[in-house]
Structures are given as C-alpha cells and as structure tokens.
C-alpha cells in the first residue's frame, strides 16, 4: 500500500491540527488511565481524607480472590460467545444480502437498525422479551418444555446477555462483511465459476479467504466491544446477577468501585482489564495480521 506524504509549510500547523484529538485523548483516556494506575497502588480511607501507598497489594488480593477468577473465566466465555455468534450471523446475513440485486438496499437498511439502538434500550428490550412472567420467549419456551427464568438460573442469564450483546453487534459485523464481499472482484467469482466451483464452494474458497483482513479487524473490534462496551447491556438486563452469574470484568469494576467504593481494588481491576485488551490486540496484530496480508 502506498501512502501519500503531505508536506506542511509551517512546522507548527501539523501539531495544531492534531491538538484537538490529542487533547481529547489526553483528558478522557490518558489522564483517567494514569489515575487508575496510580490509585491501584493506593488505599484510601472511607472518608477520602488520606491515601496510603500499598504497592501491589490490590493485585495480589485479586488473584487470590475466587470471585475475580470466576469473573475472568465468565468474561472469556462471554467474549468468545458474543464474538462468534455476532460474526457468524453478520457474515451469514452479508452473504445472503450480497446475492440480492434489487432488494439488497432495503435489507441492508433494516439489518443496520439494531446498531442505532442504545445499548440500554437493547438490554431492556431483551429483558422484556425474556421476562419470566410477562415475556414472549419464556411463554414459547415453556411449550418446548424449557422453564426460563434468568432471575434464578445463572446459565440462562448468561445466555440472555450473550444474545442481547450479539444482537447489537451483528449489524456492525454485517456492514463490514457486506462491504468486504462486495469488494471481491466479480471476475474472480466468474473465473471460479468457470473453474467448476459452485456458489457454496466459491464462498468458502474465494470470498472467505479474501475477507480475512475484514474478519481479523472485526475480531479485534468485537473482543474489545465485549470487554468494555457491554456494561449497559449487563446493567439493564441482569444487573450482574443472579449470584454474580453475569458479572463480567467490566461490570465488576463498576460494582466494586462505584457500588462497593473499594476504589483501590476497582482501579487495579480496570488496569488489568486494560492490559488484557492491550495484550490481545498486540498479539493479534503481531501474529495474525501477517497471515492475512495480500
């Protein structure tokens, strides 16, 4: 890929143009992150009058805390499930819409709508649908012999937030996959058709490999999404319950820090969460991207 190099007359101008973005990053990301790192090494008294440096105590306690380890595993299950579900569905919808010629735009518009829904609203929507007393889904599931009550059953609560989180993300994945599919040159598909490859085989041997940069990109975005951005969905749907069954790492940060006012431990957790995402992203870029470059 060739990049265009821009030359500025003044040495100051580029910095000036960057300033707003840098300012926002600094104030809303770097500074809070630095604060979190700082307070993760400190213990604060209940009235906020004094702070004591405690070193790695919070981190040490976290790794000895079975609740934290459980939340870690739970988050992994949640992230993998949401990413897999929303990407497979997004790809399936994209492949279906890509085959349409005239109605494609209508379906695209309709499929993108969930993305415009605020996460809290999405959470409430699914909460209503699956409400054990008034919801539509438990009523239907009852007929299939399944008793649904996510207020009591932890597994069902987890399934509910996975569905709600994935539902919102399908739109995003769909859009990217559709754009990716449409940028696969038509002549490649024609060449493959002449080479004796049917539509399904073409999809798996030509389209899918050519989509791998998109797939890779979406994978990172989706994992980051489930790690950070699913807080409103959890909060609106299950409030982390029942019995912590849906308390993901990001929700635990909120619970311990904001509700439990254990700021030191909460900060340590958010620092760990940040590190997990950084490491994941680094690993992905370092080792996966090499294989998907054309």
């Amino acid at each position: 890929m060739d990049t265009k190099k821009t030359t500025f007359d003044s040495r100051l101008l580029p910095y000036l143009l960057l300033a707003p973005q840098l300012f926002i990053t600094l104030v809303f990301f770097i500074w809070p992150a630095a604060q979190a790192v700082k307070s993760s090494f400190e213990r604060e008294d209940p009235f906020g009058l004094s702070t004591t440096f405690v070193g790695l105590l919070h981190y040490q306690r976290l790794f000895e805390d079975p609740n934290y380890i459980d939340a870690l595993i739970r988050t992994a299950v949640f992230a993998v499930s949401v990413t897999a579900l929303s990407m497979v569905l997004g790809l399936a919808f994209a492949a279906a819409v890509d085959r349409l010629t005239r109605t494609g735009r209508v379906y695209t518009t309709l499929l993108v709508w969930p993305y415009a829904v605020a996460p809290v609203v999405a959470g409430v929507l699914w909460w209503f649908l699956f409400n054990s007393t008034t919801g539509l889904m438990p009523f239907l599931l009852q007929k299939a012999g399944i008793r649904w009550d996510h207020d009591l059953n932890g597994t069902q609560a987890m399934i509910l937030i996975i569905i709600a989180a994935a539902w919102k993300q399908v739109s995003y994945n769909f859009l990217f996959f559709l754009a990716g599919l449409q940028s696969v040159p038509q002549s490649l598909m024609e060449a493959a058709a002449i080479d004796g490859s049917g539509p399904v085989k073409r999809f798996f041997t030509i389209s899918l490999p050519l989509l791998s940069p998109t797939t890779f990109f979406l994978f990172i975005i989706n994992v980051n999404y489930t790690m950070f951005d699913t807080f409103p969905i959890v909060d609106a749907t299950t409030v982390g319950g029942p019995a912590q069954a849906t308390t993901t790492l990001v929700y635990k940060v909120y619970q311990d820090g904001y509700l439990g006012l254990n700021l030191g431990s909460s900060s340590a957790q958010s620092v760990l969460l940040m590190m997990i995402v950084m490491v994941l992203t680094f690993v992905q870029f370092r080792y996966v991207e090499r294989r998907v470059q054309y």
Partner: protein
Amino acid sequence: MAGIKIAGVSKVYAGGVKAVNSVSIDIADGEFIVLVGPSGCGKSTLLRMVAGLEAISDGEVSIGGRVVNRMEPAERDIAMVFQNYALYPHMTVYQNLAYGLKNRGTPKAEIDARVAEAARMLEITQYLERKPRALSGGQRQRVAMGRAIVRKPAAFLFDEPLSNLDAKLRVSMRGEIKRLQRRLGTTSIYVTHDQLEAMTLADRLVVLNGGRIEQIGSPLEVYHAPASTFVASFIGSPAMNLVSGELHGNRLAIGPAVIELGAEAPASGPVTVGIRAEDLHPAREGEAVLPFAVDYVEELGAQRLVHGQVGDQMLTVALSPEIAIGEQLSLAIDPARLHFFAVDGGKRIGKGSVPAGVAAPVVQPV
C-alpha cells in the same frame, strides 16, 4: 477440441437495450476467431454469453455439438482469460493453476503433471510458489493463460487479455498467444478493441458494430475488401480515407479531379470513395492526377503520413520518406484499388478482392 456454433444469438437487457443483435458465427475446430469493434459494440457480451456468464436472450450457442444455453459455465468445457487476469490473490501460482482441476476431482498426480507441463510451456516454473502480487503484469498474464491451458478445455475465451500490459509487452505476449494456440490447436475466441491485435492474431475476424456483425473474414479480406465504411475506417492504421465522389459511366469525380476507371463503374451517381493511404502515390507521366494541398506531415521513420486536402476533403497519404514534399503534390491511384460504398448505409458496392501480389501467410506447424 470442438467447434463453436453461434446461431442467431441476441442479448436484450432489462429496459429493452439490445446489446447483441442476432449474431451468427460458425467457428471451426481449432480456429482462432477475433471479435473486434469499438467499446459498446457487444463483443464482450457475446463472449460472456458463450462462457455462460451472461444469459442468452435469444438464439443458440453450441460447443462441440452440444447446445450449452442452459448449462453452467463449468459444464461448458471452456476456459477464459480475463482482462484483469482474475487470479486468486490468496493462492500461489500453483494453487491458481490447480484450482479448476481440483474442483473436477482430478487425481493429485495428474494435477501435478499438468501444472508442471503448463508452467514449463509458459516459462513460469520458478514462480509456482509465489503469490500473484509478487509477479509482474506479464507474468500474471502467463499465469492466467496457464490456468486456462491446464484444464485442456474445448475452447479458450479471451476477454481483452492484453489491454493492461504496456505496449512492448503486448506485442510479445500477442506473439506468444498465437504460438500457443497454434501448438495446442484449441478453438479460441478473442475479444479486443485493438484492430492491430485483431489483424495479427485472427484466422478470421468478426467486426462488430452496435451489436451486429459488419463483416466476417480473414484479416486480409477484411483489410482489402471492407464490407462497409465502418469496417473501412475501423480496420487499418491509418484509417482508410473516405471521401465523397461521383461515379459516371467509367469515370469518377473527386472534387475537381476526374479519374478514368478503365472499366465500367459498379454504380452511378454519388458514392463514398475509400482510399487506403498507402495506395496513393505521386503521379507519374500520363496518370490521372489528384491535386493535393499538404497541411502537415507525421514522420514515422519507415514512412511519412502526409495530411492534406483534395478539393475541400481531408485525405491522408502514406509516402516513402525519399519523396520530396512541397506545398502541393500531384497524386495518383491505381483505379483497381479504389473502394466504393453506398452514400446511405455505407455498404460496399462491387466486390473487392485481395490484390495480386499479396500472398496468404504460410504458417509452419510448430
């Protein structure tokens, strides 16, 4: 190996646009047919209908005696070389060549043998493990050809395969395509808008215009006896001069000049006269003279193209560089080399013939 029969084939797009209008071509086994015409003449659409990439609105296409109208591209036993090569970017050259064979369940040993043979023929053996992006334009072109030949299809279809290459490479690849086709003896249909490419490659040319066939014939027939003013102006460089004249008895008047035809004219009244630039020469003693006012000269080295006017009509003349050029020239032409076309419709009047002294090329089997 198989002939291709295209019978009354039309393509009508939604909205009633007729891209191809009742075209019939009989292609013999092993023949190299070139479809040539300006952009939008329907040549690519016709090729894509033969390939099965475009539905046939009307008429019938048969390959090797089988009507293929309702067959999938894969079942038609054809291979196609695309303008942008359409190589699979995520596969190595070897995988690109093997893909079609693999899809047809060819045994691994045979795939290896066929790929190796095609690679050797096209001199791409050392690139087999590379991805297409690591190849130059010419090498990609070879791989695209390789993908066609490994399948040993009944016919090759070429869709402007050389138009993405630079001029020099185009000439050498042109020669290679011709050589390869002779050697394999596979029926081929080749689409191009480049009349020079068409002339050099074709056993027979099909000149298309507006979805219709203007003329089918060997390159020399088409060059020396164009069936219409369209063909006359499209085939040959510089384009044939087309001037208006008037026939009367055995004489032709072009502006102020009168030429004795030596025989009865094939028509009477106003006609369009076609004159090849190289058929004009400075008048010798006793020849009918066309007074020619020189505008400007293009030097091509081996010859020079002199642009100017006879009366008020533009004319281009190809002259040897030894001939001195002043402001005025007296030109003459052998009347047998004049072409006449109807003023309306532009159809040829009178039969043309390949002039004596132009021998058909002798092709040595490779």
